[in-house]
C-alpha cells in the first residue's frame, strides 16, 4: 500500500478523449494489492481501454466476487456502478443486472478461484446464455489471499513457492469456454498491454459473452522458478501468433495491414476486427480449430495469446429470450406490471 494517494497534477500534459476526459478520470481508488501484482496492470489496461473508447463512466457497471482479483474494480472508473458479490456469484448478478438494464456496459472481474472453483457452476451458465458482458479472469494459478495454495488453473508440475509440485490437472478456462459455446474467447498477459488493451476494447464492443483469460503473475506467491505463471515463464513461453487490430466504427484504419492472410470480422456496433495469424489456415471463427490449436500448444508447453475465437452472429441472452429492445428499467411501471386483469387474461391462454 503506497504511503500517499496518487496525486492529481493540474497541468500534466495528458491527452483527452471524445468526452473531454483524461485517463485519470477513468481511475479508481489506490490499489492495496502487493507491489508488482499483475492485477494492477490489468486494471491499468482496463482504465486505458475504457478511456480510449470514450465510454461514459456512468454507463459502466463493474462487478466482482471475492479474491485479490475481485478487489480490483475499486481501482478503476470510480464514476461507474459497482457490485461486489458473494464469492463466485458475480455471473448471476451480472445476468440479473443485464436482464434489467441491457443498455449498460458490464464488466465482471474474477479470478481463477472465483470463476473455476467456487463459482465454476455460475461461470459456465453465463457463458452458455451468452450474457452481454466482458468477463476478465485474472489468472495467477494460486490463491493469493490465503497465502498461495494451488488453484484450479495451476499446471501439472508447476511448483508452489515452498517447492511442492502440483499433481492435479488444471482447468483451462479458454478450452472450457470454447466447449460451452462462448462467442468471444481471448487469452492475454498482464505484462503486455500492447496486446491486452485492444482485446479489452474488442470485448467491450462484442455482442455477447466476451471472456478474456489474463495470465497475471502473483508477485508474492507465484513468481518464482518452477512457476508456470511467473513474468519470466510467461514471457519465455508465450506465443503471439494471433494478432488482431481493433478498428472503431468511425475510426480510420491507421494500422497498415497487408491484405493477404487477413481475416476481417465485422463487429455488432460497426467496428471491425482484422486478424493476422501466423498458424497456416487459422481461422478465428472456427471453434473446433481454435480448441485444437490451444490444446496442441498446451502439450508443447506454449501459451498462445490473442483473440483466439470470435462469433459475432450468435444470439445473446436477450435475443435468446426474446426480451424487449427497451431496457426493462426504462419501461413504465404499467408495462412492467400490467396488473391482475392482464395476469388473468394471460393465464386464460393456458387453459
Amino acid at each position, binding site marked *: 500500500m503506497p504511503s500517499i494517494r*496518487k*496525486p492529481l*497534477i493540474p497541468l*500534466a500534459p495528458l491527452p483527452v478523449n471524445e468526452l473531454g476526459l483524461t485517463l*485519470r478520470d477513468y481511475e479508481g481508488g489506490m490499489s492495496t494489492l502487493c*507491489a*508488482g501484482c499483475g492485477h*494492477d496492470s490489468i486494471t*491499468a489496461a482496463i482504465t486505458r481501454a475504457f478511456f480510449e473508447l470514450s465510454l461514459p463512466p456512468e454507463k459502466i457497471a463493474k462487478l466482482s466476487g471475492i479474491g485479490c482479483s475481485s478487489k480490483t474494480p475499486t481501482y478503476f472508473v470510480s464514476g461507474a456502478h459497482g457490485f461486489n458479490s458473494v464469492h463466485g456469484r458475480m455471473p448471476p448478478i451480472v445476468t440479473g443486472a443485464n436482464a434489467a438494464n441491457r443498455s449498460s456496459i458490464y464488466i465482471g472481474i474474477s479470478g481463477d478461484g472465483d470463476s473455476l472453483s467456487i463459482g465454476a457452476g455460475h461461470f459456465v451458465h453465463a457463458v452458455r446464455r451468452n450474457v452481454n458482458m466482458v468477463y476478465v479472469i485474472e489468472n495467477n494459478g494460486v490463491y493469493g489471499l490465503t497465502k498461495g495454495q494451488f488453484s484450479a488453473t495451476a499446471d501439472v508440475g508447476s511448483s508452489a513457492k515452498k517447492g511442492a509440485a502440483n499433481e492435479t490437472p488444471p482447468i483451462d478456462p479458454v478450452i472450457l469456454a470454447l466447449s460451452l459455446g462462448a462467442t468471444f474467447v481471448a487469452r492475454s498477459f498482464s505484462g503486455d498491454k500492447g496486446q491486452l488493451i485492444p482485446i479489452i476494447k474488442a470485448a467491450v464492443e462484442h455482442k455477447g459473452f466476451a471472456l478474456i483469460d489474463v495470465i497475471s503473475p502473483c508477485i508474492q506467491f507465484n513468481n518464482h522458478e518452477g512457476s508456470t505463471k511467473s513474468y519470466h515463464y510467461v*514471457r519465455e513461453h508465450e506465443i503471439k501468433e494471433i494478432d488482431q487490430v481493433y478498428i472503431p466504427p468511425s475510426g480510420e484504419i491507421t494500422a497498415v495491414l497487408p491484405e493477404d492472410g487477413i481475416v476481417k470480422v465485422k463487429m455488432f456496433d460497426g467496428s471491425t476486427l482484422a486478424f493476422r495469424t501466423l498458424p497456416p489456415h487459422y481461422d478465428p471463427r472456427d471453434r473446433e480449430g481454435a480448441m485444437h490449436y490451444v490444446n496442441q500448444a498446451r502439450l508443447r508447453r506454449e501459451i498462445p495469446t490473442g483473440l483466439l475465437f470470435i462469433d459475432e452472429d450468435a444470439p445473446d441472452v436477450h435475443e435468446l429470450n426474446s426480451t424487449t429492445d427497451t431496457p426493462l428499467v426504462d419501461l413504465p411501471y404499467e408495462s412492467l406490471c400490467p396488473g391482475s386483469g392482464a395476469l388473468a387474461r394471460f393465464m386464460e391462454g393456458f387453459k
Partner: protein
Amino acid sequence: MEPTNIEDPNFFHQVVDCQWACPAHTNVPEYIRLIGQGRYADAYMENRKSNVFPGILGRTCDRPCEPACRRGRVDGNPVAICRLKRVAADLKGDISSMLPTAPLSKNGKKVACIGAGPASLTVANDLLPLGYDVTIFESSASPGGLMRTNIPSFRLPAEVLDQEIAAIVDMGANMEYSTQIKSLEDLRSKGFDAIFIGSGAPKGKDLALKGRDEGRDRIHIGIEWLQSVAFGHIESVGERVLVIGVGNTAMDCCRTARRIGGKDVKVMARRPREFFKASPWELEDAEEEGIEITVNHAPKEIVLDDGKVIGMRFDVLSWNSDATKSEVVGSVVIDCDDVILAIGQENAFEWIERDMGMDFDNWGMPVVDEKTMATTLDGVFMGGDAPWGPKNIIWAVAHGHEAAISIDNYCNGVALEDRPATAMDLVSQKMGLTEWSYHNDYNPNLRQKMTHVELTKRFAELSLEVELGFSVEQTVLEVERCLNCDVEPVFKASSCIECDACIDICPVQCLTMTSGDGVIEELRLRLSAPSPNLDQQVYLSTKLAQTGRVMVKDENICVHCGLCAERCPTAAWDMEKFTLNLGYAGQVNQRVTR
C-alpha cells in the same frame, strides 16, 4: 540509443530546474526542506555557500530560478523560492559561529579588488578564509556597490546590506573607501599578486534629444539620481515625473519618485508590454503604487518654456507582432516637471591604460574568458557587470566564485583551466517499505502572496520596507509546494521484472518501457504521455532482461512523489537525493559518490 550516464553530475543537476537555472547553482530544494524543518540558520548557511548574500538576494534577486521551477509547469506558479530565501535570512538568529573565518597566519599573497560590489565581495569571501590578504578599493564611502546605490532602501533595508557585507569584511579585508582607482598601471605596480576588477557598469546612458541640455536641471540619469537619493543629496522631485525606459532600474526610479514628491508618475515605454525588460513582479509592484505604464511611446524632444521643462514630446508607435518593426502613428506632448532617463548602463574603463596589454573588443569592452574570468592581462581578472554589462547580483556572485578559483590557481602556479571538479552525491532516501526521508506527497497549495505595507505608510517614509516577508503560516504552506526535484527516481535495470507497476502508478505518465532503438526525437513520440518540453532530458536505462526493451523517463514533469519506487516489487526504482558539490577556491578535488 546509449543509456543515460547518471554518474555525470550534469544529468541530475539539470533535473533540479531551479539549481540549474541559478548562475550560482544554489541548492534550492535542500534549503527549502531545511526551512520546512524550522532549521533557518542551516537553510541560511546552505544558501550562503553558493550565493553569499541570502538576505539581499531574498529581496532583490532577479530570480532566474523561478521561471525555471518545475512547479510552474505543474500548477502554473513557481515556488516562491526567492521570498523563502528571505525567510531563512530573517529568522536565522545568531549565525556568527557558523560563518567562515580567516586564518591567523596568512599565506603571503596579496589580492586587490576594485569596487566593493557583490563580485569583489564574493572574491574576498572565498579568498580570505584561505589566508589571502585582500584589499578592496571603493570609490564611495560605503561598501555594496550598486546594491546600495541603485536598489532603493524600501526594497533592501540598509541593515540587511550592512550585516551580510560585514560577514565578509569582518574576516579582515582591508577596505579602502573613497578611493577611486585612476590608473590600473599604478595599482599594478603596488605589489599585488593578483587584481580583480569588479567595478560594475556605473555609467547611466544618456539620450541626445532636442532640449536635453537646456533642461538639464530637471532631467536626470536614472542610476545617478537613485544614488543621489540613497546618499541624501536629493530629497525631492516634481509632482509630475516621466521615467523613460522600462527595465528594473526604471521601476526603482518611479517608485522612489513616488516617495519623494512625485504624484503623477508615468513610465514611458517604446515597446509593448510583453517585450519589457523589467521582471513582471517589479512591474506589478510599481503599478500597485499608482504608477502608470504607457506603451508604444518613443521620446522625441524635451518641451521647454522659457528654459524650464514643461513636458516631453513622444512619437506614438504601432508595432508589428514580434515588435521588430514600428511606424509612427501620432505625436503627443505629455506634461511633466522632471524626466528620469533609465534606459541602460554602460561600462567605463577610462582608467585602464590601453597600452598595458589588455585586449578590448570593437565595442570597447575588455576581452574576458567566460569560464576563468581572466582578462588578457596576466594576473588581472574581471567579473560582475564590468566585463559584459549589467546583469544582476546573482551573476556577479557566480563570477566572483569563478574569479576566486582563478586567482587561487594563479597565485599557486596552477593552470587556470585546472579547476576544482564538480562532484555529486546520490544517496537513497528509503526509511522503510513505503517511507522516505523527505515529504513525498504532492501538496496542492497555491503560491502564497507576499503582504505589502499599505500605500499611505510607505509613501510617508522613504526607507520603509514594502514587503513584510512571509509569515510562519505562509512559509509552512509555501515550502510544501516544492517538489523536491533533487530527490531522484534512480533506476536499476538489472532488478526490473517488467511488471509495469511503476508505469501504471505514475501520476503524470512520465514512464514508458519501449524499444531503445532509433533516435531520441522519434522515441519521444512513443512515450506514454506527450513529451512537449524538449529542454528537459529523457532518462534511458540499459536493456531490460526479459524483453530487451528499455525504461524511459521523461524528466519534464515528474513530481518526485516516489510512487514508482513504492510500487516497485524489486526496488529497481529508488528515490535518491542528488547533491551537487560545486568546486570553490581552495577545494581539494571531490569525487562522485553513490
